[in-house]
């Protein structure tokens, strides 16, 4: 697609979409959002970029293969589930550490395995959607 307006607009749009996708990822669990929707938004950012600058350029911007991203995401999600073994809880039980308090309302922020799982989901969704999208773009 050779439109100057689109190419120029895409630069801002891609950045905005990406920030928004990370925002969605981080606000998940307690508020609407999470890894799945964040991953979809991230994929949209890359797809817009590849429409504006061409698939080859978008692929080099991604640096690693989308399939690799997806499978690493699967591994991260799995590890997040396995952590609860160390605490004697069943598989996938969320482990929480509250910083500066003892619950969602009182603490500043928390370290938890749920976010790790969500990051895994984010990468799986981003990777698999992108590998589909790039395959289609190569066809046409």
């Amino acid at each position, binding site marked *: 697609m050779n439109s100057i307006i689109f190419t120029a607009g895409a630069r801002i749009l891609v950045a905005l979409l990406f920030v928004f996708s990370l925002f969605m990822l981080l606000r998940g669990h307690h508020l609407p959002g999470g890894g799945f929707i964040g991953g979809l938004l991230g994929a949209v950012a890359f797809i817009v970029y590849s429409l504006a600058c061409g698939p080859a350029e978008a692929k080099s911007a991604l640096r690693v293969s989308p*399939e*690799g991203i997806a*499978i*690493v995401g*699967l*591994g991260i999600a*799995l590890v997040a*589930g*396995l952590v609860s*073994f160390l605490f004697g*809880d*069943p*598989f*996938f*039980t*969320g482990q929480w550490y509250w910083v500066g308090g003892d619950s969602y309302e009182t603490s500043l922020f928390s370290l938890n395995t749920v976010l790790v799982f969500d990051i895994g989901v984010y990468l799986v969704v981003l990777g698999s959607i992108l590998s589909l999208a790039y395959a289609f773009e190569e066809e046409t």
Partner: protein
Amino acid sequence: MTSWLLVMPIAVPFATAVLAYLMRRAPSGRWISLTGSVLSLVASIALLIAVLNEGVIAAQMSNWDAPFGITLVADYLGVVMVVITAITGLATAVYALGEIPERIEHLGYHALFQTLIAGVTGAFLTGDLFNLYVWFEVMLISSFGLLVLGGTREQLDAGIKYVALNLVSTIIFLSGIGLLYGVTGTLNMADLREAVANAEDQTLITVIAMMFMVGFGVKAGVFPLFFWLPASYHTPTFAVSAVFAGLLTKVGVYAMMRMFTLVFVGDVGFTHEILIWVSLLTMLTGVLGAAAQTDFRKILSFHIISQIGYMTLGLALYTPLALMGGVFYLVHHIIVKANLFLVSGVANKLAGSTDLRRIGGLYKSSPFLAALFIVPAFSLAGFPPLSGFWAKYLIVKAAIELDAWFVAFIALFVGLLTIFSMTKIWGMAFWKPHPDGIDPVPERVPAKIRVPMMLPIIGLAIMTVVIGFFPEPFVQFAETAATQLLDPSDYVTTVLGAQR
């Protein structure tokens, strides 16, 4: 720690898949996959021992109590399916060392294979209906990947048919889940048992039950929903087709057995009567379809369908003996059928084709392979004293006890036609001389490829013979499994009362 016993058979193949994918371009990828398969087998045997000691075991994932969270359950039927999945997985992982070329390994064969095993295992262990749907999807996606790896024209053609029809089945299944949730407000299988029995609108329940029967029926490949199976199973690599043949349709049968003994038992006279006729037609059409084929794998594919009929018949007759026969049949069939597909792969390597008209001479040149073919082939046909004889014996006896003479007659008649197909393969691939004058001696294939391909065939053949000569413990196991299916009170109380 029971929770982790239940998780490991699923988590190990997933972890293996991740590592095998990252290492897919290195030779270590295939050894990671093989190690993962060994560990899966260890994990599932650990689970088997736990179930043998404690009876039904269940665990709540993420610590959300049933019926709200996802429950993993293992009863006798579930655990034996997990073990047999791990055995088939290991056998085909060894076989793949010889068969799968590097080109296909680089595309991520081992990762997809391990994901498929994880999906199948998950389907056998889950106690939650929506989770079962998720496992079906995991299986569908990874099996589609395996089916088209290599990217030949036939494979893509088969892949499209396979995915399109399986998606239809999944959508029907999902709609059934949605309706069931609307009626009962729960999707935990143990919880559903009571909720379905107490539901006001039993007609709607029966309708939903039929949606499940169709959904699982496509997966299992019963009449008249089986046509995707012979259209696709002869195209992928032989290791893949062996896993498909052994495991995929059995997940459909398992799901049917689970749902129609645990949940949909309100109108057995209606639902299971339909299932009897479906089973008989499945057995007949499968075996007649096979008679018309001349391709090694296509004949075997049609036989999968015909054998599925026996298993669903065990469920349809709905007596302790029949269900026991069904469970026994399920286990025996996975071993035998996977093995026959593995044999067809070796025959292809030696003689150059799977088209029976274009090969021959295997008996004279490779008598050992011929002997290894005889064991699963005659077991499939139900020759005493191989495992298939006991499986058929139990089903036929159950039919006769119900005075269902017609059913018993069809079951025996289909067995006879199965012998016809097996002798056809025997005559054309093994006895007649090779049409091109090739001498298909084993030495035509380098030992590096031949040995890993023969080992799993030998192993599975030994299992068939062992089950045949010492059926006692296996029959007893199947009997307990059937008892648990017909009276799932243990299952229900364990799931709903399971803490940690």
